[in-house]
């Protein structure tokens, strides 16, 4: 058995530390899936805690980690297979969402990933199970993940699903990977189902978002930000005009999606859609918020205060209050997830079978898994 130091020195794809990432003994950016396999095999052999890093935009989710190795997906940046007519695209994990959507838009298509992704990568969005505003129309990201290549904690390359838009061949590894926060393996490559980008796009400002949501018949999204509500419409020009007429408000051309909330402390409040109005009312007045109507998520930002009552209420209606950004002291004081899910031992058994030495993002999932 080689020493830890020489094992670290032997890892392929060594790069300089990444700004914003926690301090580690080695930072690697493998250029191929084979290199990811090699790195994780070595990391498992030497029990090296490994933090997976995409664009760094969703690192605020879950338990904090003191890594020995930071594994960046920046070197996995290829669009592997784009089939516009089949409405599928296969990309490596490190491809940036913004770059992918720009490329797809040139062909009149979209992956319906987050609209203001910043530096986020496709792999990061999938690993964190993040969806854009348009999930109101196209469903969450997990419903559009057709195929995944995962390199497990002990360096096995596993492929699940397939590059067809409808498939029930075997257990659904793609869905298991979505939102797994790197705990099963490094998501190295994914195939996504695409949608045509609507030929007409419009926005309507309304006073009553709930009424507009019902009247417009499946708009792209209805978003309420600090008391102001916008309905995002898309389709043929006739559809957009029809939807605006049904709402009864004038439409302005184009979509102006809200950007990420400012503030160092941010939470995702998740409730059944019917509880969204109550949820907004439960949030303290000195918090900023963005609410996805019809979906049931409110992202809030405000002072680092006491959220116990809000979390208790959210959990009592079947939801959750999840910390998504904050200073280290806050993570030390409060469980970022809240009450873990009921099936915790089952979750552990699965994680153990994919990452037997538990080196990948340990402690990040709910329940300290």
């Amino acid at each position: 058995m080689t020493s830890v130091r020489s094992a670290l020195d032997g890892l392929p794809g060594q790069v300089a530390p990444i700004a914003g990432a926690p301090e580690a003994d080695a930072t690697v950016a493998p250029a191929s899936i084979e290199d990811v396999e090699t790195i994780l095999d070595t990391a498992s052999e030497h029990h090296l805690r490994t933090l997976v890093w995409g664009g760094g935009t969703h690192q605020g989710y879950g338990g904090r980690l003191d890594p020995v190795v930071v594994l960046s997906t920046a070197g996995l940046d290829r669009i592997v297979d784009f089939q516009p007519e089949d409405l599928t695209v296969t990309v490596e994990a490190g491809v940036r969402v913004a770059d992918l959507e720009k490329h797809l838009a040139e062909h009149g298509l979209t992956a319906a990933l987050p609209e203001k992704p910043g530096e986020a990568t496709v792999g990061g969005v999938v690993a964190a199970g993040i969806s854009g505003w348009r999930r109101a129309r196209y469903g969450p990201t997990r419903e559009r993940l057709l195929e995944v290549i995962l390199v497990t904690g002990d360096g096995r390359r596993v492929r699940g699903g397939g590059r067809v838009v409808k498939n029930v061949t075997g257990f659904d590894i793609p869905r298991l990977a979505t939102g797994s926060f790197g705990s099963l393996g490094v998501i190295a490559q994914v195939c996504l189902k695409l949608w045509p980008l609507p030929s007409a796009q419009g926005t309507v400002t309304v006073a009553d978002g709930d009424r507009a949501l019902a009247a417009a018949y499946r708009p792209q999204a209805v978003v309420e930000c600090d008391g102001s509500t916008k309905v995002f419409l898309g389709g043929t020009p006739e559809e957009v005009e029809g939807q605006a007429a049904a709402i009864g408000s004038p439409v302005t051309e184009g979509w102006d999606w809200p950007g990420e909330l400012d503030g160092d402390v941010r939470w995702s409040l998740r409730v059944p859609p019917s509880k969204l109005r109550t949820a907004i009312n439960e949030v303290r007045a000195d918090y900023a918020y963005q609410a996805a109507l019809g979906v049931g998520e409110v992202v809030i930002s405000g002072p680092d205060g006491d959220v116990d009552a809000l979390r208790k209420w959210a959990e009592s209606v079947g939801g959750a209050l999840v910390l998504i950004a904050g200073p280290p002291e806050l993570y030390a004081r409060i469980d970022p997830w809240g009450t873990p899910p009921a099936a915790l031992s089952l979750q552990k058994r699965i994680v153990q079978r994919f990452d037997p030495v538990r080196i990948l993002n340990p402690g990040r999932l709910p329940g300290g898994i």
Partner: protein
Amino acid sequence: MTLTAELRDLLGHDRVLTEPLERWVYGIDSGVVRGDAQLVAFPETTAEVASIVRLARHYRMPIVARGAGTGLAGGAIPTQPGLVVVLTKMNSVEIDLENATAWVGPGVINLDLSKQTDPLGYHFAPDPSSQSACTIGGNIANNSGGPHCLAEGSTVGHVLALEMVTADGDVLVLGGPAPDPLGLDLRGVVVGSEGTLGIITKALVRLTPNPPDVRTLLTAFSRVEDAAATVSGIIARGVVPAALEMMDQRMTEAVERFVSAGFPTDAAAVLLAEVVGLSAAVDAEAAIIEEVARENNATTLRVAADEAERAKLWLGRKSAFGAVAQAAPDYYLHDTVVPRTKLVETMTRVYEIADRHGIMMLNVFHAGDGNLHPLMAFDSAEEGMLARVKAAARELVEVCVEVGGSLSGEHGIGIEKRELMKLVFNEADLDAQARVRESFDPDAVFNPDKVLPAGSRCFDLGRPPLEGMWV
């Protein structure tokens, strides 16, 4: 005590079947393989299911959960002498209109749910052809599709949470009513697992608002290529119809003899397209479809004038399999998926296979998502025919995989395609799936010998778990 006696203590005499004829009935589903049902139990509550699981484990009897038995891949039959747990009596429906969801028992019949929610303005979107008979529990087990999953997605997108009895006889709730429940998406893995991970006793399903308006178009073409080009053309114009269904000439003829749906029998391919939404939107989309069909030399182009005509067109489509029963005493219905752009190439090769084996083949399929349903009609009394049908079926799957497709789009793997899994997955892929199965059900109590080929779990791969870790 025996298992029979204990089950009768638990459920009463009438809800445990043991007579040979009864066992024979529950020894088969709509597939072609017969299993060995030793006992058949009909629970009515989750607590009863949990007790049944504990009892069956005590007596080391494998458990196979079952709904209406409409599955075509043999997913609901016991391959080993086993206990069949029929869930059709668990058919409660609790609608939550505010959230457009419903908690339903696994025994609720798919179409019954939509009929119940229709007056409230909602429906359950997955609509398999068997929807008047199949249960929601079965839909969840197989992640069923249907014509309208082109725009709406398969069953998994319509299931928010599951109540499930585990191999230990515990009751777990996976998922929840709020978006993005915490932790791994176990709900997403259980859907489509064909009864191998647990017994679903209740499901929280999403209801879809009924569209304010709908247009259904019938188009026909003298060449299959033109029909396929129309499908691609529609989607390239940015329209994803609610459904895009295609039938070949032989199927159209069979349907017309059976129900007179008004399909032109002289066309090489009939394409049924449906768009839903606000009136202005569906008119615009229907106009685009008409334009694309015309550009591709459509020989027939008709918009259903009213609900009656629309219903007739859909009756024709959904009667396809019944219609074939008139053509030959037996049929073998297949289900594979290919990338949509490979449709024409695949069909040409599929016909060649059938011709070479001297088998009559008819085709009806979900053209929008490349989901083929080649149907072989035959007489099993004919000597050697069954072997020919099986050989042709295997070749057909190989062709689909070769062009980048997959084994099944909506029927599942069951026992039928279990060995074929090796065509699309390698050793490490199958091992990973077996690890998922093992995490839920380490002793393979639930529906053994299904989905994964024997020996999928490969203990040579990867590293052993770290000692002292959790479990």
